[in-house]
C-alpha cells in the first residue's frame, strides 16, 4: 500500500502545537528507547488500553532511496516482497499464523519510510516478534514468485489510476524536481513498474542494502512490559547483521523560475489546480517547519478567509487545502483546489497566489495563531485513543528522527511560534520555486 505523505500529514495533524511553554509534552506516554549493539532501535510504550498490542516496524527507506535510474518504485515493491516468505515461514504458514492469532496486519510505503504493522492480542507478542524477525533476516523468494508479485504492484497502480489526484501528484513531482528522487512518486514511473518483472537480481541487492538493523526501528505499543519486550527483541533480532550501504541521494539544484504543467484527464472530472512551492527539509531545531505547518492551517484550512470565499460564499471551488511537508529532504508545500467550472480555474489560481502574497506581506493575527495551536493539540489528543493509532503516529516521527522526542521537539517549536515566524515562513514560498499543475476533464481544455 502506498501512503501519500501529504494525506498522512493531514490525517495525523503533524503540524501539532502546544498551548504554552509549560504545556505537558504532546507525547504523554512514558516509553523506553533501547539500541541493540547491531544498530536496531526498540521503542516500547506501555499503555492502559487492555489486551491489544501494536507492533510497527519502521524502515527508513522509501522512494527517496531509489537512486538508480530504471528502478523507481522498488521500496514499495519491496514492501510487497516482504510477504513472500522465508524457509521457516513460507507465505502460507505466515498468513495462517497471522490468521490464527486474529491479527490485523499490513504495510505501507511513502517517500521516506516503509512501515510494517501488526495489531493483535497481547498473548501473541512473542509469536509476532519472532515471525517478523525471521522475515527481516531471512526473506527468500524465487524469481517466479518475484515476477508474480511485481504484477500485484501493477494491479495497485491500476486501481490508483482511476483517481485524477494520483495523476496530478505524479505530474507535480515530475515537473517540480529535476535531480532529487522526489521526482518520482512512491509507486514509481509506470515504465519502471512494467519492467519490474525483469529486475529480480536488483531486488536482492535492494534487500541487502536497506533491510538492515541500522535502518530499522521497532515500535511496540500497548498492554506490554518494556523489559519483557526487550528480552524478546534481543532473542529474535539480536543476531541480525549490520550493513554498510549509504545511498547518495542527489541534491536538487535550486529552481530558477516558475514551472507549469497540465493534465488532460480522459473521463469526466472537476478541474483541479495545484500549486507547489519548494520548501526546506523537516527540522524541529528551527522555526520554518512548524511555521509552515501553521501557515497551511491559517491560510488554507476550512476556517481560512480563502476557503470561506471560494468554497462557502462564491462556491466556485468545492474543496481547498494546503499541506506543508515534513520530509527528510526539501520538498513541496502544496495548495490544491478542486474547481467547479473550468472557466474559473485561473480565477481560483490567482486567489491562491494572492493569499500567499498577503501572508508574506502581513503577520497573521496572534489570536488566530492561538486557535491553530489549540486545534493541533486537541487533534493529536483525540487520535491517541488506542494503542494502534499511538504506534501509527509515532511511526511517522520515527521515520524522520528515530525517536518519539521528534514529536515533542516539534511541539516545542510551536509553543514559541510568533506571527512573524509565520510571515517569514510564507516568504519561503518563492515564485521562482513554484510549480503549478492543472488538470481538466474532457471539454475543459486549458
Amino acid at each position, binding site marked *: 500500500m502506498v501512503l501519500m505523505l501529504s494525506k498522512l500529514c493531514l490525517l495525523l*495533524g503533524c503540524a501539532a502545537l502546544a498551548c504554552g511553554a509549560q504545556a505537558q509534552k504532546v507525547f504523554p506516554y512514558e516509553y523506553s528507547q533501547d539500541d541493540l549493539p547491531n544498530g536496531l532501535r526498540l521503542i516500547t510504550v506501555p499503555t492502559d*488500553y487492555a*489486551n*491489544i498490542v501494536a507492533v510497527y516496524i519502521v524502515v527508513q527507506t522509501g522512494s527517496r532511496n531509489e537512486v538508480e535510474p530504471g528502478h523507481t518504485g522498488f521500496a514499495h515493491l519491496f514492501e510487497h516482497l516482504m510477504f513472500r516468505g522465508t524457509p521457516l515461514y513460507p*507465505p502460507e504458514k505466515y*498468513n*495462517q499464523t*497471522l*490468521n*490464527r*492469532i*486474529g*491479527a*490485523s*496486519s*499490513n504495510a505501507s510505503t511513502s517517500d521516506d519510510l516503509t512501515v510494517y504493522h501488526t*495489531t*493483535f*492480542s497481547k498473548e501473541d507478542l512473542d509469536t509476532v516478534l519472532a515471525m517478523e524477525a525471521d522475515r527481516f533476516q531471512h526473506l527468500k523468494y524465487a*524469481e517466479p*514468485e518475484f*515476477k*508474480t*508479485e*511485481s504484477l*500485484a504492484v*501493477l*494491479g*495497485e497502480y*491500476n*486501481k490508483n*489510476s*482511476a483517481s*485524477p*489526484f494520483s495523476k496530478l501528484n505524479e505530474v507535480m513531482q515530475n515537473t517540480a524536481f529535476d535531480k532529487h528522487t522526489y521526482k518520482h512518486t512512491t509507486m514509481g514511473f509506470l515504465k519502471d513498474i512494467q519492467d519490474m*518483472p525483469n529486475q529480480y537480481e536488483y531486488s536482492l541487492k535492494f534487500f541487502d542494502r536497506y533491510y538492515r538493523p541500522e535502518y530499522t526501528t521497532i515500535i511496540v505499543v500497548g498492554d506490554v512490559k518494556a523489559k519483557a519486550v526487550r528480552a524478546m527483541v534481543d532473542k529474535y533480532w539480536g543476531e541480525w547483521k549490520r550493513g554498510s550501504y549509504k545511498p547518495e541521494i542527489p541534491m536538487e539544484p535550486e529552481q530558477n523560475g516558475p514551472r507549469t504543467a497540465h493534465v488532460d484527464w*480522459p*473521463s*469526466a*472530472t*472537476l478541474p483541479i489546480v495545484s500549486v507547489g512551492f519548494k520548501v526546506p527539509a523537516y527540522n524541529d531545531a528551527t522555526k520554518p517547519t512548524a511555521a509552515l505547518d501553521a501557515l497551511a492551517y491559517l491560510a488554507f*484550512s476550512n*476556517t481560512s478567509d480563502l476557503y*470561506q470565499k471560494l468554497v*462557502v460564499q462564491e*462556491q466556485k471551488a*468545492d474543496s481547498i487545502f494546503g499541506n506543508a511537508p515534513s520530509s527528510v529532504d526539501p520538498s513541496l508545500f502544496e495548495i490544491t483546489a478542486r474547481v*467547479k467550472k473550468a472557466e474559473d480555474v485561473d480565477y481560483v489560481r490567482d486567489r491562491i497566489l494572492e493569499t500567499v502574497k498577503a501572508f508574506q506581506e502581513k503577520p497573521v493575527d496572534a489570536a488566530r495563531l*492561538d486557535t491553530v495551536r*489549540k*486545534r*493541533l*493539540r*486537541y487533534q493529536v*489528543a*483525540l487520535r491517541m*485513543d*488506542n*494503542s494502534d493509532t499511538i504506534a501509527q503516529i509515532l511511526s511517522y516521527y520515527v521515520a524522520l528522527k528515530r525517536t518519539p522526542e521528534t514529536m515533542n521537539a516539534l511541539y516545542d517549536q510551536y509553543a514559541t511560534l510568533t506571527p512573524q515566524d509565520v510571515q517569514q515562513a510564507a516568504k519561503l514560498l518563492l515564485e521562482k520555486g513554484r510549480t503549478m499543475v492543472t488538470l481538466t*476533464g474532457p471539454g475543459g481544455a486549458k
Partner: protein
Amino acid sequence: MKLTISLFLLAACAAAQIRTVALPGKSPLVTFRIVFTTGSASDPADKPGLAYLTAQMIADGGTKDLTYKQIGDALFPMASSVNAQVDKEMCSFGGATHVDNLDAYYKLLRGMLLTPGWREDDFRRVRDDAINAIKVALRGNNDEELGKEVLYETLYQGTPYGHLNTGTISSLEKITLDDVRAFYKSQYSQSQLIIGIAGGFSPAFLTAMKKDFQALPATAAPQPRISAPAAVEKSRAVIVDKDTRSVAFSIGYPIDVTRARPDYAPLLLVSSYLGQHRMSSGVLYDRLREKRGLNYGDYAYIEYFPRGMFLMEPQPNLARHQQIFQVWIRPVEPPTAKFALRLALFELDKLNKNGLTQEQFDRTREFLGKYVNVLTRTKRAELGYAIDSLFYGIPPYNDYLKTQLGKLTLADVNRVIKQYIRTDRLVIAAVTRNGEDLKRQLASDDASPMTYNSPKPQQITEEDKLVVKWPLGLKPQDIKVIPVSEVFQ
C-alpha cells in the same frame, strides 16, 4: 466486559422512548454517535437522495443561531467535527471531543441536530457537493466503488433499497429546501433516535442530553417495509462503459442473513475464509493475487461495506434488514479480465463442492474470535457496534460473535456453504473501457487462455485448464452495457 454489558442493557432499557447506548469510562475523550433509524429507504419514490441531503444539511450547514462559518470557527480549535453517514435504514451523526470542550461541543451538536438553519446558500453548496459526489467522486474517479454500487442498485431494483444513498443527479437537481425540511420533520423523531455516547461524561450530562432530545417529535412517519428483493433467477451482467485503464468487477446476490439470524456466524466465517477485507489470508486473495498476480486483492462480504478502497475495517452504523453476498475483484488488466472473473467463480464452486476442512474451520474461527477484539478496540467502534446490536436485537457484538462462534461446528459451516455459496443466479457488475467488447467476451464460451511471466506449479497449470473454459452462463441478452454518464443519472 461484564460491566459494559450491564451498563449497555441498563441504558437501553432506561428511557421509555429514547433509546440510549452509554459506555461511560475514564477517558478524557467523549464520543457521540447519534443515530436515527431512517435513511435512504425512506426517500420518496420521486426524490432519491432526500435523506442524504437532509443529513448533509445538518452536518454541513448552519443552525438557527449560527452560520456554517460560525460553527466551523467554533469547532476548529477543538479539532472536532460532526460527520454524517447515510445508509438505507440509518442516518448517523458522529463526533468526538476532549472533555475540556464537552459543553461547547455539545451545544453545537445539539443546535445542528435540533435546530438546523436550513439556509438557501448552504443548500446550494450541499446539493452541488452531492451531485459532484456522484458525477465526479463516484462515476469519474472510483471505478471500484462504482461497480459495487451498480451491483447493489441492480439487485435491489423495485425495493426501497433500489437507489444509491446519495440519490440520482436528476433527482438531486429537483429536490428543494422545503423537501428537506419536510423530511426532517417527518423522520427525525424520538422513536427513530438512538443516542450513543462513550467516554468521560457524567450521568447528569446524559440525563440533560436526553431531555434536550425530547424536543423532537415523539414519532416518525411510517417506515417503509423492507422486504427481500426478487431472487436472481438467472445470472446477468451490467457493464459500465467509461474511459479507464483496467476492469473492476463486483459480483453478488441477495442473502436473507443479517447479524440477528442463526446463519450469520457460520456465513461470516465462510466469507472470512474466502476473503477477509484487505487481508492476505483469504482464498481469493491467494489464488488471484498471490499465485497468479492478477490484481491487487480480492475479498468477500456478507454485509454492506462502502468505501472499501479507503478503509481497512468495516464502519458501524450501516445496519440493514437485507444484505447481499458479494465478491470484490480489484481492477485487472483488460486481457486477463475474463480469466479473473472465471477464476473467482471457479473458487466459489470449489468451496461449494468441497466445503472447509477441520483445519480451515478451526483457523478461521480462531481468527474471527480474536479479530473482533481488534475491530472494537476504540470506544468509537465499540459504541458503533453496540448501537448496531441494539438495532439487530442482539447482545454486544464482541460477546455475541464469540458465543456464536463457540457453538459452531464444521458441519454447520459446510451446511451454509451448500446453502449460500453458488456460481449461478448472480449479478456481475463491471466497469471497463470498450464495454461492448467485454460483453462479447462474457457472452461467449470461448476459452480465455492465460499466460504468465514466470513458470507456475503444476497444480496451478492444471487448475487453469479448467478455469479458462469455466462457463459463465451468460447470453448476450443477459448483459447490459451502460455509458457511465447514464449511471445514477
